[in-house]
């Protein structure tokens, strides 16, 4: 079971809970995001570009005190995330006013 924490603006759009739990067979970033978008279609296009599936420029992924934003999408998530000990945190980059 993987825990996901989304930023407030996206939780507000979808009426989503503060923390989401997902079953993911292979704990990679891509599989996790696929599962997240499948559960909540409103998130499609908000974290990753529709066409390219690339992370949007101002979206960042953190877990276990590390910035995972630039990890390959098929890399395994940290073991503590995969087992649910630590959340996978999505944040909006600091920018703008």
């Amino acid at each position, binding site marked *: 079971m993987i825990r996901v924490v989304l930023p407030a*603006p996206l939780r*507000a*759009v979808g009426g989503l809970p503060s923390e989401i739990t997902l079953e993911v067979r292979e704990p990679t970033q891509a599989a996790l995001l696929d599962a997240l978008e499948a559960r909540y279609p409103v998130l499609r296009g*908000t*974290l990753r*570009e529709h066409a390219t599936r690339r992370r949007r420029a101002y*979206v960042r992924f953190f877990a276990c005190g590390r910035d995972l934003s630039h990890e390959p999408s098929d890399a395994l998530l940290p073991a503590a995330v995969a087992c649910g000990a630590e959340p996978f945190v999505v944040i*909006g980059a600091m920018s703008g006013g």
Partner: protein
Amino acid sequence: MSGVRVLVGTRKGAFVLESDGARRDWKVGGPYFPGWEIYHVKGSPADPNRLYASQSSSWFGQLIQRSDDGGATWTPVGNEFSYAHQPGTHQWYDGTPHPWEFARVWHLEPSLADPDTVFAGVEDAALFRSSDGGATWTELASLREHHTGSAWQPGAGGLCLHTILLDPADARRIFVAISAAGAFRSDDAGATWKPINRGLRSEGIPDPDAEIGHCVHRLAQHRAQPNRLFMQKHWDVMRSDDAGDTWREVSGNLPTDFGFVIDVHAHEPETIYVVPIKSDAEHFPLDGSLRVYRSRTGGEQWEALTTGLPQRDCYVNVLRDAMAVDSLDACGIYFGTTGGQVYVSADAGETWNPIVRDLPAVLSVEVQTFL
């Protein structure tokens, strides 16, 4: 009982302002979608409870919201705007080829007849249509794939398709405007397009017959005279009496003919409104004095309308989608500013009052009239 519902898009959310036909006392609803840029909110002429809103942010991209109850509740619908075919390139600011990339929806134009059909004008410039209430979107690609498309260049605000006019007399006729490509018309429901920029003159475009390249800021049309179009160009206020085939300048005695908005009185096809802005470098009113100008002659002769508007120390802008008119007997005129004010005139411009003074910067204003 008659009334109006004013739909306001701002840099940080949407607001719904409601009043009865007197337009003196207002109920302010919102913010809806707080923190998000709301480029445009518009209601369906066929079903006034059906509203569409363009919600976007630099962080999380584009969402489209739909309301089926006049704005009381909203549901996110489809947000995938994929260009048809291989998008190719347009020109970048420096003249080099630049890939076509979707940025946001600037304008939503619901069909005049079907609440489930709505058009979206987007940046980078393209026209999309949904026929299922916004669930899915399909590009009308022949516009972007017009032979001039690879030469279109963005204006300072981006390469945006910001104006969509659906002809009330001919369901197959559509007008659009793009900064800074110009105006285009389709006579076959979007299957083919024709640039309609003959007669426009712009500094830096020496060719008087240039098909494209003009920075059109806004088009306006009166329902009773659909072949008569008015245009606020980057500089110049223009008029066409042949559905855009030819244009002539009607700036007349305006103190400056730079500006963004233009609109037409609901019941007088020759009465038009603009808000002159000092210049392309100084986006605020001349002399710090906010003045709406009205022409009752379809241009050329203009009068300043100032009663109730700030006449000193006012340095706001009025953006291209931020003026609208209602269709009550005494036509109401509305506009919003980058300073967060939304003004109403319930007497066709003679006197003005602020409905709200302190919203985030206003991006768009639309009005629904209930007779």
